[in-house]
């Protein structure tokens, strides 16, 4: 006997969020997740948190490099330029 897919519970829904946001979730899974999200404010909040996290990751500038790291590499550049 073939069973219909059971509705998602929150614990399983959160495992689908990353692929969902990347658009790589298979259609059937996507529909299950969207159906769950439509009824679940907490998982919608989780989705929003994940979306904000990914967006912020793309906006973080480079770390402030210690000046000795920058100076060391710039010295390499000067040495290379003088030798060539």
């Amino acid at each position: 006997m073939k069973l219909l897919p059971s509705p998602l519970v929150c614990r399983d829904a959160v495992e689908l969020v990353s692929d969902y946001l990347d658009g790589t979730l298979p259609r059937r899974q996507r529909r299950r997740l969207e159906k769950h999200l439509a009824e679940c404010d907490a998982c919608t909040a989780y989705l929003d948190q994940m979306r904000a996290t990914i967006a912020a990751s793309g906006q973080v500038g480079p770390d402030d490099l210690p000046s000795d790291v920058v100076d060391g590499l710039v010295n390499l550049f000067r040495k290379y330029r003088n030798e060539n």
Partner: protein
Amino acid sequence: MSNHQATSTTAGLWSRGRRIVAPRFELTAPGTVLHVDDVELLERLLGGDESAFTELVRRYQPTLVKVARYYVASVASAEDVAQDTWIAVLKGIEKFEGRSSLKTWLLRICVNRARTSGVKEHRSIPVDPNESGPSVSAHRFDRGGLWSDPPVPFTDAVDTRLDNSALLNAVRAAIDELGDPQQAVVTLRDVEGLSTQEVATLLELSEANVRVILHRGRARVRAIVEEAMKGSKI
């Protein structure tokens, strides 16, 4: 995050009496300001501009170290790999044909060198330690799998108590806390904006593996940021 796509033609530049073939890019995708900057930096570097080199170092050194760290045994070794990468860049910049973006070229040099160093160190490539663990701690759910301790939208915390820079700082700190291979994958995919396919090719992983590692890494970053936001509440 857009994929940077560019077509290249060539144009000659003169530097210290030598003819150099430098790549020029015609942007084919919108939102590629960073890429344009890279092209400008490349042209300035070809002219021997030290400040262009410094800017590239500031922009990419942290990513190079994070990616190298995936292959080698320590941060110190990863920094050595990054330094070797910059030397290779200086030696090879005049031959760079612009078939890939400068960023991709840099990363490929870095990965090749890191892989060689890792082999010399007899380092085995780490597997994802959280591969089989849940994205969210089990104690946040009840027995039926429903939230018992539901998440609060970041936007509430951001709007009322924190500005966007606090969120960015929290995310940056969280990514710095990640272990391998999540740190390398999240950095390449979400910070540097490479596609899943590009990350998979660069790190010689399957796309399915990249997606799993990315999923775990993002979940970990979200969890750390969530804690930071809670901690910031008055």
